C-alpha cells in the first residue's frame, strides 16, 4: 500500500462515562485507507468505548478524532454519516417494527429528497443481497439473527459510507453465519472502503485485518501489521499478564 495518512484517526483520547471513571486513557488509533484495522483486547479494555467515541456517541474529555484530517471531535453522531463515516453497532440494530424495505429506506435518509437516488440505492442493496428481496415486506423483528445482520450490513451500505466502524460483527451468530459476516467485510475492503473493526473473535479479526491495535486497561498496549500477531497464544498470554 502507498504510505498515505490515516482515513480516520483517534488522537490521545481520554474518555469515560461518568465523572469519576476513566475508560480510555490517552488512546490513539489510526485506520489507514482501504485497509481493515482491528482493535482487540480483553473485556473492559475500552474497545467498544473507542468505537462509540469515533461514531460520535461519546465526547472525549481530551484528545481529537480526525476524519481525513478534518477534526470531527465535536461533530454529533448523525452528522458523521454525511462526512462518509458509517457505524455498524454491536448486537441487533435493525429496526424491528419496520419492514426490511423500510429499514433500507431509513438507510437512505441522507438522500431522502431525491426519490430516484433512494430507489437506485435500494435496488443496488436488493441486487447485492438477493436473499433480502423475498423478505422485503417482513418486519425486521421477525427475521433470524443472520438475516437481521445481513439487513444491517445492507442498510449500512445504503448510507454510502467510505469509512466503516464495525463492532462485534459476529456477536450472536452461528459460526456459519459469522463466516458470511466476515466474508462481507472482506468484500467491503476489496471495494476500497476503510474499515475499523472491534471484535472479541480474535482469530477471525486477525485473519481479516491488515493492521492490529491491542488495548488493555484503556491504554494502547501494542500495535502493528497483522503478521506481528500471528502467534495467537502469545497474544492471549500477554493479555493474561496484563490482568
Amino acid at each position, binding site marked *: 500500500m502507498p504510505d498515505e495518512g490515516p482515513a480516520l484517526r483517534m488522537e490521545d483520547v481520554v474518555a469515560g462515562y461518568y465523572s469519576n471513571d476513566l475508560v480510555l486513557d490517552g488512546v490513539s488509533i489510526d485506520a489507514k485507507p482501504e485497509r481493515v484495522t482491528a482493535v482487540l483486547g480483553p473485556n473492559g479494555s475500552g474497545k467498544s468505548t473507542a468505537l462509540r467515541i469515533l*461514531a*460520535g*456517541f461519546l465526547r472525549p474529555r481530551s484528545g481529537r478524532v480526525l476524519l481525513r484530517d478534518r477534526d470531527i471531535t465535536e461533530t*454529533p*453522531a*448523525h*452528522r458523521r*454519516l*454525511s462526512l462518509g463515516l*458509517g*457505524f455498524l*453497532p454491536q448486537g441487533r*440494530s*435493525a*429496526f*424491528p*417494527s*419496520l419492514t426490511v424495505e*423500510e*429499514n433500507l*429506506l*431509513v*438507510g437512505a*435518509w*441522507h438522500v*431522502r429528497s431525491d426519490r430516484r437516488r433512494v430507489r437506485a440505492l435500494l435496488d443496488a442493496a436488493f441486487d447485492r443481497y438477493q436473499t433480502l428481496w423475498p423478505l422485503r415486506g417482513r418486519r425486521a423483528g421477525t427475521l433470524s439473527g443472520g438475516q437481521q445482520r445481513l439487513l444491517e450490513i445492507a*442498510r449500512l451500505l445504503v*448510507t454510502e459510507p467510505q469509512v466503516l466502524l464495525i463492532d462485534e460483527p459476529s456477536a450472536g451468530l452461528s459460526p456459519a453465519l459469522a463466516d458470511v459476516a466476515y466474508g462481507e467485510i472482506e468484500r467491503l475492503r476489496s471495494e476500497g472502503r476503510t474499515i475499523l473493526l472491534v471484535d472479541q473473535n480474535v482469530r477471525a479479526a486477525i485473519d481479516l485485518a491488515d493492521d492490529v491495535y491491542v488495548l488493555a486497561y484503556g491504554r494502547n498496549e501494542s500495535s502493528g501489521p497483522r503478521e506481528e500477531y500471528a502467534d495467537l497464544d502469545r497474544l492471549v498470554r500477554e493479555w493474561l499478564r496484563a490482568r
Partner: protein
Amino acid sequence: MTIDSTLQALANGTVLGLLYTAVALGLSLTLGVLGVVNMAHSALLIASSLLTWQFVNVAGVHPLLALLVIVPVFFVVGALIEHVLLRPVRRQPESTGLLLLFGLLIMVESLALAVFTTDPRTLRLGEFGQPVTLGPVTVTLNRLSAAALGAIGTVALYLFLQRTMVGRATRAMADSRDAAAVMGIDTGRLSTLVFGIGVALAALAGVALAMSFTFSPQEHVRWLAWAFLIVVIGGLGSVPATLVAGLLVGIVESFAGFLLPFQYIHLVIYAILAIALVARGGGLMAAASRRL
C-alpha cells in the same frame, strides 16, 4: 332496545369513540415514540377548548376556522416545550421530565383558571348545532364535525407514520434512538417535531371537545384519565389500536347509557380496562413496547 335505538346508540358511540381517539392520539404518540408521559396533555387540550370558546363566542369565528389557527399555534407550543423543557433533561431519569410536565400542567391550569375562571363553557353554535338525520339516526352537525376531526387526525397521523420518510424515521427512532442517529437522523430535531405533533393533536381534540361538550379549565384531569384509559386498552403508539380502543370505549359507553343507570357506565368502562390489563399483562410498561 329497538333496531332504531340500537342504530342510534351505535352512531352516538362511533361519534364519541372518534372524539376519544382524538383525545388519546397525541398522548399515545409522545409516549410511544419518545417515552415521555405528557402529563400536561389534557391541560393543553382544555386550553385549546378554551381558546376555541374565545374565538367562537367572543370573536364570532366559526370553530372550524378557529381550528386552522389553534392547531398550528399549539404545534409550535409543543415544539417549544420539547426544545426548552424536555431536551435539557433527556439524559436525566424519566421522573425529571414527568415532574417538569406536571409543573407545566399546574401552570396551564392556573393560567386557564385566572383567565377563564371555573365557569363551565359551551360554544355558541347557532346553525352549526342543527341535527342531521340519516334514516333512523340523528346526530348534530357539531358532533358529526367533531367526529370527522377525530377521523381526519387519526388517518393523517397513520399516513404520516406509514407513508412518509419522516414518519418512517419516527418509527425507527421509536425502535432505537442510537440506531436512528447512525442512519444520519437528527433525533433531537425529530423529537421536537414529534412532541409538536403530539400537542397539535391535543389541540385538535380540544377543538373537537369544545364542539361537543360543556367544559371548564379544571376538567382536564377527567380527560387525562380517559386518554390513559384508551392508550392502555389499545396500545401505545399504535394508531389503529388507539382507534379501535377509542371506538370500543365510545360504543360501550353509548350502549351502557341506553341500557344501564348512569352511575354504572364508568364501572363498565373500567371493567374493560381491567380485562385489557389482565389479558395483556404488564400495564403501561408492556404497552410502551408495542409497535407503532
